[in-house]
């Protein structure tokens, strides 16, 4: 008998609201329905009433964690419209801030995943390793999030040369800590048992659903906008694109951990290659036309499309966050797993908006019971504990 379990619109592991309805047969999920839009703020329409230079301040608030990604893609869209070349120093600064953001976003996700699995030590330590990174972002841009760095034609402020030794020192320490975390994930048999084979999304389904970022690369779908559509200094640095095989939750975690090493490599190269120079090209007007900007955010490719009629505000501004594509993949990856795994699978795409506060259980004759947020996390942690006991009793 199929029951429907509504989850949402608030979730214990994820940052923003989303509604899931799980269709379950016993413990097995046989279907899923998703509703989004709980955080809809009309940013695209707001943007059409801001001047071109005001829009970066607006779009960096699309997401609290990806607050370099959206303004980066937006300014590239306008620069595509203009056919503008940005000064070299500005290109390196943009990439440095963007990669620092990637590091802190991936570490944040690893911590939350650890908490949800019952590894609260991982949660605490990961977020502790993240703190010096946020301090560096504050020293370089003035804020831990919402950097107000990107502007059309370049960046708003220079990267002080005296900050560079501090950044390199932080990266050295972070690299060692990331190595520790990666080994903890890769070597732990309980994490293997809990996450391998869970929430599979193979390559053909990645393509069919338009999956992006680590969600796609975990399923061997080899796409990365930094390599495929390089912008600014990304064509001047060397890095590897991390791709795994199976597309399960384990692979998604491994991709994010290994990408941290690549981000550190990119930042070091940028700091080494950066020369003194201008940080912004002059822009006096935006002529009629359209432009497209894409950037590989921590969650996947962000796309901004702008159209101008020659005025001082965008005529049209389309924003597509990667989670818009990635959350849809839950349609394929959640059915066939258990209720305890459903939250973990939806969290594994690192959605930019999804929080479930409670689970409503509705049986076939209309009786309803509610499981709280704490119960849902407990359900997942209990499953991990059972697996751990199986291993320790051997």
């Amino acid at each position, binding site marked *: 008998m199929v029951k429907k379990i509504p989850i949402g619109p608030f979730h214990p592991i994820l940052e923003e609201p989303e509604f899931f309805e799980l269709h379950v047969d016993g413990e097995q999920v046989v279907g899923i329905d998703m509703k989004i839009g709980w955080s809809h703020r009309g940013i695209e329409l707001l943007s059409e009433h801001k001047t071109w230079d005001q829009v970066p301040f607006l779009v960096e608030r699309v997401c609290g964690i990806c607050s370099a990604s959206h303004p980066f893609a937006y300014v590239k869209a306008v620069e595509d419209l203009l056919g503008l070349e940005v000064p070299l120093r500005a290109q390196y600064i943009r990439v440095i801030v963007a990669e620092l953001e990637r590091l802190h976003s991936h570490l944040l996700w690893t911590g939350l995943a650890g908490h949800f699995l019952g590894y609260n030590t991982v949660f605490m330590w990961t977020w502790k390793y993240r703190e010096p990174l946020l301090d560096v972002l504050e020293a370089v841009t003035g804020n831990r999030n919402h950097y107000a760095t990107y502007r059309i034609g370049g960046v708003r402020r220079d990267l002080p040369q005296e900050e560079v030794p501090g950044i390199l020192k932080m990266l050295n320490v972070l690299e060692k800590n990331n190595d520790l975390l990666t080994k903890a994930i890769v070597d732990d048999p309980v994490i293997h048992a809990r996450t391998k084979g869970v929430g599979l999304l193979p390559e053909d389904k990645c393509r069919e659903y338009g999956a992006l970022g680590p969600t796609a690369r975990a399923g061997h779908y080899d796409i990365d906008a930094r390599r495929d559509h390089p912008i600014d200094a990304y064509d001047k640095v060397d890095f590897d694109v991390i791709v795994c095989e199976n597309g399960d939750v384990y692979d998604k975690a491994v991709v994010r951990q290994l990408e941290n090493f690549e981000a550190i490599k990119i930042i070091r190269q940028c700091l080494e290659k950066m020369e003194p120079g201008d940080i912004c090209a002059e822009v006096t007007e935006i002529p009629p036309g359209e432009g497209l900007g894409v950037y590989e955010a921590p969650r996947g490719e962000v796309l901004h*499309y702008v159209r101008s009629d020659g005025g001082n505000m965008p005529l049209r501004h389309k924003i597509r966050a990667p989670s818009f594509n990635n959350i849809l993949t839950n349609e394929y990856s959640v059915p066939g797993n258990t209720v305890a795994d459903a939250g973990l699978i939806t969290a594994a795409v690192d959605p930019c908006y999804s929080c479930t506060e409670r689970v409503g259980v509705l049986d076939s004759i209309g009786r309803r019971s509610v499981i709280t947020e704490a119960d849902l996390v407990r359900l997942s942690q209990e499953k991990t504990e059972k697996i751990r006991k199986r291993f320790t009793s051997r």
Partner: protein
Amino acid sequence: MEKDELKKRIKEKFGEKVEIAERSPGRVFVYAENDIWVDLASFIFNDLDGRFDTGAAVDDRDGVEVMFFMPFDKEHYYVTIKTFAKKPRPALESISNIITGAKWIEREIFEMYEVNFLNHPDLRPLLRADNRPEDFYPAKREVKEEHEMSRVRDDGRERYDEVHGKPPKGKNP
């Protein structure tokens, strides 16, 4: 697939029903008539191995311009396919029966711009609040009188701007 080969194959298949333009090294535009919209998307996605990224729409006086972005990652360029859904009652055939990833963007374009995607498997509003009027499409540049917000204060006092005039606008940087 290289750009020149792509342009040639699209033109061979669709002839006069498409116009192809290349604006910069990274952008190819294909303007298509409505009746070949699905065939074109399917051809680029299935036959030419393009990737489906997302879509967008722009409201116009006479209709809604709908576009989908389909990159060719190995060759480092984007193909934008565009068509025009005429008002009143703009409609297009849905491509989500061929490209599953188009489901949600078509739902968004439908609820924002009133473009009816025919044969869409689930054309419900995606982002809309449950209490929003059914016939309200927020991104369209026309607003019905009955959807105008009430400008009367509920405490009986007069509105400031009706008494003193509108305050001056802030300085635009």
